[in-house]
C-alpha cells in the first residue's frame, strides 16, 4: 500500500513545480502573443514583423547559429578525441577544456570585449606588430561584421565545452572491441573515427546539437556586451520590447518566434540523427 503511493508522493513536488513554472508560463506566452482585450488577434505578430529590426534580428540569429554550431561541433569533436586518447595529464587537460562551461555568457562577452574594444588587446597586438598606427574602432556600427565575428568567437569560446563534455562521455560508452576489430582489419585512425566513432556517437551528437542550437538561438548577453543594440538578435529584441517599448505582447510574439525555431531545429536533429532501436548500445 505504502510503496504503491510513495513514488507518486516523491514525484509530486517536481511535477507540481514544472506545471506551475514551466507548462503554465509557456501557455501564457502563447496567450500574450495572440490575444488582445477582446479575443484572438494577429496584431502583435504583425507589429513585430513590420518593425524594421525584426528581419535583421531573425537573420542575424539564424546566421550566427548556422556559423557557430558547425564550428563548435568540429572543435568539440577534436577536443573530445584528444581527451579520449590522452594517457597522462588527462584530468588536467579535461578540466581546462571544460572551464568555459561554468562561465556566464555575460562574462564571456566581457572577456572578448577586453580583446576587441578600441584600447583592447587586439589593437595593442596589431600596434605592437606595426600593422596599425592608430587603434581601430572594431565594435562600432561601421564595422558590423567585426561585431558579428567577435560574437561568433566569443560564443565558440564559451559554449564548445558543453558539447565537448557530452561527446567525451558519449565516447566513453563505445566498447573498445569495435576499435580493436577495426584495427585488425587495417582501418586507419581517420577511418576508425568516421566509421566507428561517429556512427556510434549518434545519440550524444543528437543531444549536443539540440542543446547547442537552442542555446544559440537564445544568444543575448554576449551580443549586448560586445555590440549593445547595434547588432539586433531575437532575444535582444524581446528584451527591448519588454523594457524599452514596454509592450509585453510583442515581446511574447518574439518569444513565440524563438520557441518556433527551437522546436523546428529539435525536430530536424531528432529526425536527422535518429538511432534505430535495434542499433542502440
Amino acid at each position, binding site marked *: 500500500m505504502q510503496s504503491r503511493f510513495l513514488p507518486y508522493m*516523491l514525484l509530486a513536488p517536481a511535477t507540481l513545480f514544472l506545471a506551475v513554472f514551466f507548462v503554465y508560463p509557456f501557455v501564457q506566452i502563447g496567450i500574450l502573443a495572440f490575444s488582445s482585450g477582446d479575443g484572438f488577434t494577429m496584431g502583435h505578430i504583425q507589429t513585430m514583423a513590420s518593425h524594421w529590426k525584426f528581419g535583421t534580428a531573425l537573420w542575424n540569429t539564424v546566421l550566427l547559429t548556422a556559423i557557430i554550431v558547425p564550428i563548435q561541433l568540429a572543435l568539440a569533436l577534436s577536443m573530445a578525441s584528444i581527451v579520449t586518447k590522452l594517457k597522462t595529464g588527462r584530468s588536467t587537460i579535461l578540466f581546462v577544456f571544460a572551464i568555459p*562551461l561554468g562561465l556566464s555568457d555575460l562574462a564571456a562577452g566581457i572577456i572578448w570585449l577586453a580583446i576587441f574594444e578600441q584600447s583592447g588587446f587586439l589593437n595593442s597586438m596589431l600596434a605592437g606588430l606595426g600593422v596599425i598606427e592608430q587603434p581601430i574602432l572594431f565594435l562600432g556600427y561601421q564595422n558590423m561584421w567585426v561585431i558579428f565575428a567577435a560574437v561568433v568567437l566569443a560564443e565558440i569560446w564559451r559554449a564548445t565545452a558543453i558539447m565537448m563534455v557530452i561527446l567525451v562521455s558519449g565516447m566513453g560508452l563505445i566498447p573498445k572491441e569495435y576499435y580493436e576489430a577495426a584495427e585488425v582489419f587495417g582501418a586507419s585512425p*581517420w577511418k576508425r573515427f568516421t566509421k566507428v566513432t561517429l556512427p556510434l556517437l549518434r545519440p550524444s551528437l543528437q543531444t549536443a546539437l539540440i542543446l547547442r542550437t537552442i542555446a544559440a538561438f537564445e544568444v543575448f548577453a554576449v551580443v549586448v556586451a560586445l555590440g549593445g543594440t547595434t547588432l539586433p538578435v531575437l532575444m535582444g529584441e524581446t528584451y527591448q520590447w519588454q*523594457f524599452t517599448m514596454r509592450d509585453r505582447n510583442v515581446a511574447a510574439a518574439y518569444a513565440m518566434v524563438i520557441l518556433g525555431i527551437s522546436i523546428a531545429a529539435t525536430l530536424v536533429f531528432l529526425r536527422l540523427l535518429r538511432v534505430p532501436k535495434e542499433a542502440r548500445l
Partner: protein
Amino acid sequence: MSTLAPTDEPRAVGDTRRAGRWVFITATVMLMAWVLVPIYLLFVNTLSSPSEVSGFPKTGLPSFDFASVEFFLSFSGVARALWNSVVVAVLTMVLSIGIGAPAGYALSRFDFPGKEVFRMVVVMTRAFPLPLLALPLAVMFIRVGLDDTALGLAFVHTVLALPFAVLITFSLFSGIPIELEEAAWTLGCNRLQAFIKVVMPLILPGLVASAVFAFTISWNEVFAAAVLTIENRTLTAFLVQSLNVSPLHLKFAGGTALVVPALIFIFAVRKYLFAMWGIANR
C-alpha cells in the same frame, strides 16, 4: 589529422609516430591556450588601474594595481547585487535539490505507471528556451506579490536547474545497490532511517556536486534576472543593465567577479562533470 594520412612512401614507423605525436601535442597546447588566454586577459585588465585599462597600447601584463577592483566594490549597487546573486543562487540550489532529489530517488527505485512520461517531460524541458519563461512570470509575480524578489527569480532558475538535479540524483541513487537498503530494513530500520543512515552518506558528495551545479546555473543566468529584477538586481542583471553607461574598468572588474566563483565551482565539481553529462545524454 593530416599527418596521419596514408602515404605510399615507406617510412620508419617511429618517424610517423613521432610526427603524429608532435601534431597531437601542439593541438592540445593550442586548444588550452585558446581557452585560457582570454581569461588571463580579463584578469590583466582587472588588476590594472582604471587609466591603464583605457590606455593604449597595452602590455598584456598586470600591474597589480587594485584601484579598479576597489572602484568596482565601492560602486553604488554592486555590494547589494553581489548579495542578491548569492541569495538567489542559494535558494535555487535548495529548491532544485529539495524538489529534484525525491523525484530522482523515485525514478531509480520504483517501477510505476507514468514513470516514462515524467522522465520525458523532464528531458523535454531542455528543448525549450527557458529564459523566456521570465516574460509571462513577470506578470504572474506582480499578481502574487513575488515581483522583484529573490524567491521569484529563484523559481525561474530552478526550472533551469531542476532537470539536471533530477537526472543527476537519479543516476546517483541508481549507483547504490538496493540490497544495502534492504539489509538496513531487515536490521530494523524503516524506509526513512535506512535512507538517512545508509544511502545519504554514500551519495552526499554527488549531491553536493549537483547542488553546486545548480548554484552556478543561477549565478550565471542573465536574461531572466534582467527581466525579473528591478530594485533587487543580481550581479548579472546589474552588469547587463549598466553596460552602456559604465566605464571599461567597471565592466572588467564585474566580469572577473562573475568568473572567479564560477571557476572555483567548476574546479570543485570537476570529478562529477562527466558523470553528470553522461546521464544527461539519455
